[in-house]
């Protein structure tokens, strides 16, 4: 594909704009002015063709099955896209008087309420703009709480299956990370008791965890932490595994973040924008970032919690993402959301049962939204999991997440979501079985995959070494 710069030629661009000021205006002093602007000069028709061509070189949920584990690549309802793109939104400056934006504030206030109900928490902020941003915000609230109480705690405990954002968010607060080994793929209460002490700040837990397992000892875990005054943080990346069935708030979590771009169907946009609202229990409410949205007799306004940590990003959060998630909740209602997790879990278990013989991992138990298989038995044929992933592309699917979680050797982490029907799953399962046969009979075809894509195995080492990050 040609780059925009390569189709640029001086004079191609015919963009114009009216000017209705006819009097002479004194120019800015020369020293501040630039002499040239180096941007592609292309016509509108060339521009559209360029981006349409690029889009054809990209694969999204609208193209096909996208079972990327821990990413919840579900279908993004089109009605929500249409409403969020209403022409009106171009006029809604975040600083307009609240009398103008009562409808938008109502949506945000109701969203705070819906999330409280669904997560079992006492208050929510919609400000964080992604899951990791929510993690930081949740931990920062806890930090302020301990600081306020004069307690010096600096240890964050994580299971070895945790998302990479968990330790990274902890580090941003200067906290020390302690990783504990899982037992049967779950937190081992005994091991946890050994490390929890008066210096423990919190345990960060994803539930269902990254192996797709519900942390069965969650209530014991809560007791262990509470007994030393430490807190429990919920990474809501995997809420699709039990939404409508159970609530993190009832499990003893003190602060949670939810990924609206996962469980609540807003599109991932090639990596963003997302939204990561944070919910807390009553005792942490006063520390939430400001502004929160309040409602008094159907009049909506902003407020600032008494001991607010301040702001974690500009304005009130990613409004149009929040709006899409709000619409999703209104479309599904409680029963619809419950069915989401039921079918997501049905799909994940179905894939696991059909494929565990071919891609066995050390674990085999009931899973929730995702299952983790392994390609390790194929190492003997000289085939690595990355090869399997590349071969999956030849069958027309996006590969699962690979090499994560680290506790499963050669991991293949598969999250089908509820929006894929049995036919699609069966086709995927067939493809995976065929690949396992190919490995045994003709491993070269797998090692050389993908064969059907335009680009094949980019040289990542070269990209690193000869760093070229602009044309």
């Amino acid at each position: 594909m040609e780059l925009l710069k390569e189709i640029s030629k001086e004079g191609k661009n015919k963009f114009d704009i009216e000017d209705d000021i006819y009097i002479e205006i004194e120019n800015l002093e020369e020293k501040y002015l630039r002499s040239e602007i180096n941007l592609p000069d292309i016509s509108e028709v060339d521009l559209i063709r360029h981006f349409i061509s690029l889009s054809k070189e990209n694969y999204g949920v609208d193209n096909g099955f996208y079972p990327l584990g821990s990413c919840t690549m579900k279908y993004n309802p089109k009605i929500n896209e249409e409403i969020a793109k209403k022409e009106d939104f171009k006029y809604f400056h975040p600083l307009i008087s609240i009398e103008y934006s009562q409808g938008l504030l109502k949506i945000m206030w109701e969203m705070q309420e819906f999330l409280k109900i669904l997560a079992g928490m006492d208050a929510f902020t919609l400000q964080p703009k992604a899951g990791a941003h929510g993690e930081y915000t949740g931990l920062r609230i806890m930090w302020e709480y301990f600081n306020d109480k004069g307690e010096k705690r600096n240890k964050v405990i994580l299971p070895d299956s945790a998302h990479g954002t968990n330790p990274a968010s902890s580090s941003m607060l200067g906290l020390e990370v302690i990783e504990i080994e899982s037992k049967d793929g779950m937190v081992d209460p005994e091991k946890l008791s050994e490390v929890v002490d008066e210096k423990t700040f919190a345990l960060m837990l994803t539930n269902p965890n990254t192996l797709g397992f519900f942390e069965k000892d969650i209530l014991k875990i809560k007791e262990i932490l509470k007994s030393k005054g430490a807190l429990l943080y919920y990474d809501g990346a995997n809420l699709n595994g039990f939404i409508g069935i159970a609530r993190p708030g009832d499990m003893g979590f003190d602060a949670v973040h939810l990924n609206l771009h996962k469980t609540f169907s807003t599109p991932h946009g090639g990596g963003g924008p997302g939204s990561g609202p944070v919910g807390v229990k009553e005792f942490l409410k006063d520390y939430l970032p400001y502004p929160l949205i309040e409602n008094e007799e159907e009049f909506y306004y902003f407020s600032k919690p008494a001991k607010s940590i301040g702001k974690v990003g500009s304005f009130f959060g990613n409004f149009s993402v929040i709006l899409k998630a709000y619409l999703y909740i209104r479309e599904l209602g409680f029963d619809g959301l419950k069915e989401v997790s039921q079918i997501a879990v049905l799909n994940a278990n179905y894939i696991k049962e059909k494929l565990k013989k071919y891609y066995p991992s050390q674990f085999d138990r009931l899973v929730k939204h995702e299952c983790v298989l392994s390609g390790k038995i194929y190492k003997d044929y000289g085939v690595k999991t990355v090869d399997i992933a590349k071969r999956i592309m030849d069958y027309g699917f996006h590969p699962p997440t690979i090499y994560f979680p680290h506790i499963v050797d050669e991991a293949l982490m598969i999250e089908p979501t509820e929006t894929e029907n049995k036919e699609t799953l069966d086709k995927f399962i067939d493809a995976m079985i065929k690949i396992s046969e190919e490995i045994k009979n003709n491993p070269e075809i797998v090692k050389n995959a993908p064969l059907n894509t335009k680009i094949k195995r980019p040289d990542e080492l070269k990209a690193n070494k000869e760093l070229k990050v602009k044309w």
Partner: protein
Amino acid sequence: MKFIPHTQKEIEEMMRDLGISSLDDLFKDIPDEVKIKEKLDLPKPLSELGIREEIENIFSLNTIPKRIFLGGGAYYHLIPSTVNYVLNRGEFYTSYTPYQPELSQGMLQALFEFQSVLSDLTGADITNASMYDGATSLMEAVFMGERVKNKKRLLIARSLNPEYQEVLKTYIKPRDIKIEFIDFKEDGRVDLNQLEEKTKEDFSSLVVQSPNYFGIIEDIEEINKIVKKRDALLIQLITEMMSLGILKSPFELGVDILAAEAQSFGIPLSFGGPYLGILQTKKEFVREIPGRIVGETVDRNGKRCFVMTLRTREQDIRREKAKSNICTNNSLNAIAALVFLATVGPKGVKKIAEINYKKSHYFKKRLIDEGFNLTFKGPFFNEIVVDLPFTDNVLKEKLSLVGIEGGIPLKYYAMDNSYLFSVTEMNRREDIELLICSLKEG
């Protein structure tokens, strides 16, 4: 409305294959104590028709403000039709972070082009593939500066957008970093004498916004000379990227890290987000920049292609030693900015910037004609602070009579009678006259 595609028969077949008789069996590992017992109190589900009607009802509570003179970190600009047309491609917006380059060349090339266009515009060596917003970009810039210089003192120009100041304070409080502020002078610009004084001691970086919160263009070259007398970095923040249509590129003036909010480039105001954070730096600090970066390479057959690169800086690889926790960024809005800049082209971005300059200076001229006083006299781009003889409530009321939203009170600075106005290409001359008229009255 439901988005589950299974037939009842399929569900039953799958349950049979799994040897379960009820979907509840799938959740038997969850302790009963934590299971939801009764239906949660959410509104009843709506069909597509139902949600359309409902949302129309809710939106009827809004009043659409069509004459906007508000800036202060978010700007009302033209969005060419090409932008939405491209963003509506499902291949882009329903994809995820391009972990599998063979299936993501479209997004990867678009992000590479975004990085290139933004680097060309500002003179940076490196632009990452976007951040959440300008405020978090600035936070990351400050932490980069701290890692590079390893000093625990940070200088911030007080003319930095107050929202951004608040965000920095939140992030810095748990860290062992001391913030000191540099005041502005009567012309609204950084007090260079005070800067000279404060830079006598070691510090990691100085953060300056230009055009600053008051709209005033700072003398970045002079500021940089003072900063570079010590072993420290200059971090510039830009919230109004349209200014670069006429202003010199920051890296040409000696800036080390640029953090910016690029909402002005094709992204709707959308009540505050999602916007687009920009983070850029020079070659020498490339290992310290957080976030995704796309690089060019070749594939097995020697064909040019693109991949995410320098991955060992990131959280999914490096965990607690990562440069930041950022995972999701703002790819789709990065494409919006790219399409915007490619649509208006080099001459277009210059012309839009010139018209912003012209219109805001026309507004200034009209203010002076009518005897109003400007709070600051420094050079400005498209925002201007005016002293007005009334409270913010009175101002709001006056303007609402003519359907204008504008004039952000500078309460943060305890300047109770000063108001910030923004004038862009979207404000017609007759709207400027209307604004002047309503300010004049009573």
